[in-house]
């Protein structure tokens, strides 16, 4: 009985992994294939598609734009969402259910609706259709990804007593947040930052509708190429994965370096 169960779950996991991984492998193969129409495996391999992608004048522009938007969304999350979450946890705990609800809303609003609403409401200069409006939209839409892990981390530590000890020793709110609270919820902040970065980097609808051609992001370029040349599009997708991977590894590396004891303590709690 036990044994059958575990075989069953292994098979299930196997199917799931294949389902997730096959498209990635296929995309990767396609991006380095010379010709892959009639054979099971590609007829030859080349890096030409990458060359084409790199040489495209919009490649570095869109990549830079996407980095700007993603980093701005992460920074906005760090500077607005983290302090707000801390504030609500310590000073107005009664407002926490409200905030929880608010942080589900972005999931309920389709990106198209959000984009059109923002375009209509902020239809005045200089914000109308500006990168700033795009970033603001991305902040709203990625808010829950920062809020959830940070809120969970705050619940795992004794925020009240830590805050009061620091206050008692003469620290101000800024010092408490930066020196006491943030290091103790670092795993939550990092996973929040990672999720925000990854979702915003891959965001298409808002970018397409709000800024469009005036401030092209990487996913826009990718979609353009899917219409023109699938193999270059595949190369761009692989680059996009790689960026996400590097970002994750960088964040894991940073968290593994400075915060060993914190993680252990958070785990112990």
């Amino acid at each position, binding site marked *: 009985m036990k044994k059958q169960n575990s075989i069953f779950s292994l098979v299930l996991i196997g199917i799931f992994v294949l389902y997730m991984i096959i498209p990635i492998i296929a995309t990767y193969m396609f991006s380095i294939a010379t010709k892959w129409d009639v054979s099971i495996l590609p007829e030859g391999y080349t890096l030409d598609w990458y060359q084409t992608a790199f040489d495209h004048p919009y490649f570095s522009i869109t990549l830079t734009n996407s980095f700007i938007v993603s980093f701005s969304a992460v920074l906005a999350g760090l500077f607005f969402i983290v302090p707000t979450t801390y504030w609500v946890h310590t000073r107005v705990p009664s407002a926490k259910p409200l905030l929880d609800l608010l942080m589900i809303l972005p999931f309920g609003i389709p990106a198209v609706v959000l984009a059109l609403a923002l375009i209509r409401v902020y239809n005045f200069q200089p914000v109308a259709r500006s990168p700033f409006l795009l970033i603001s939209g991305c902040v709203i839409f990625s808010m829950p990804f920062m809020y959830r892990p940070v809120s969970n981390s705050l619940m795992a*530590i*004794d925020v009240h*007593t*830590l805050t*009061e*000890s*620091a*206050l*008692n*020793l*003469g*620290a*101000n709110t800024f*010092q408490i947040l930066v*020196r*006491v609270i943030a*290091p*103790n919820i*670092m795993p939550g902040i990092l996973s929040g930052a990672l999720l925000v970065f990854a979702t915003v980097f891959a965001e298409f609808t808002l970018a397409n509708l709000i800024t469009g051609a005036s401030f092209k992001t990487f996913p826009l370029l990718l979609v353009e190429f899917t219409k023109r040349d699938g193999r270059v599009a595949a190369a761009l997708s692989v680059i996009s994965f790689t960026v996400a991977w590097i970002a994750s590894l960088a964040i894991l590396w940073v968290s593994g370096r400075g*915060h060993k*004891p*914190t993680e*252990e*303590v*958070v785990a*112990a709690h």
Partner: protein
Amino acid sequence: MAYLDLKNVSKLFGTVAAVKDFNLAVEKGEFVSLLGPSGCGKTTTLRMIAGFEMPDAGTITLAGDDITIVPPNKRGTGMVFQAYALFPNMTVRDNVAFGLEVTGHPKAEIDERVREMLAIVRLPDAGKRYPHQLSGGQQQRVALARALAIRPRVLLLDEPLSALDAVVRVALRGEIRKIQLDLGITTVYVTHDQEEALSISDHVVVMNQGLIEQLGTPEEIYRQPKTRFVAAFIGTANQLHGVVVDRAQVQFGTMMLRAPVPSNLSASHQVVVLVRPESVTIHSAAPSSNQQNVLEGTIQTITFLGPITRIAVDVSGTRVVADVTAANRAALSHNQPVWLAFDPEACQVMASQ
């Protein structure tokens, strides 16, 4: 005006009065304990001194400054919490240094102070360790060092030992008292453990439902409890219900007890006569002395408590306990008829209700 002065301080939580019209004067260098049952308002009082709660009425002054509405990070109070509130992300050294760093002291001074504080709490080599690498008792020592490092004007401790096991608790409370005396630091200590309060305090404030029941030295609190609550809460006291006959006598059942009756209690007043178990001696034959009060009864239970044995005796329906040493215990057994004797001076008479 006293060094730390609470005047008519009250605190409400919704409709619950946590602290009512509280007056307390603590002199510089004094060690005062707030003692009382759970929910009596000890923590709330301490938190008002630290600035974490704002009183609804009254004023708090510290070293001549009115601190009633001063924010907690500007008060210069050092607090030790019940839960080890050390910063888990910092080493012991950084924990102790924190208060000095956030207020911008020079590094050399901080290093020197940290060394001094860790020496005081006898953890000179723990600087590089993290809180989770320390025992509970060690963590509380670090918490004490951290609170003392800022040279607070008053040290506040909220049941700092209640999460520790009995042996560590007793050892550490003695150390806290010694450090307090060495540094001459004014201290307010919250506990619900009467033995702890009596053993280390200059003065004890016994609280009940947000009010002060009695304020006095440990001896006064123990020997002359002012209210029945204090008598019942501190140690163990026999309570013999009776009626005042005259200035020196109380009718207890069919017996007459000699006891000093305070002048505010007139004849036929309902009273309680309090006698501590250690003041009662136990005899297997009727004692001849006619100076002492003598009660006759039978032994109900014999409880071994280590250095003493507590004998509960049924005296015509009232349970009276007496503490005896091992030598006196040997001759006693269950259901044995015995005589209890105690001096009139060992009795304290107070109004019942």
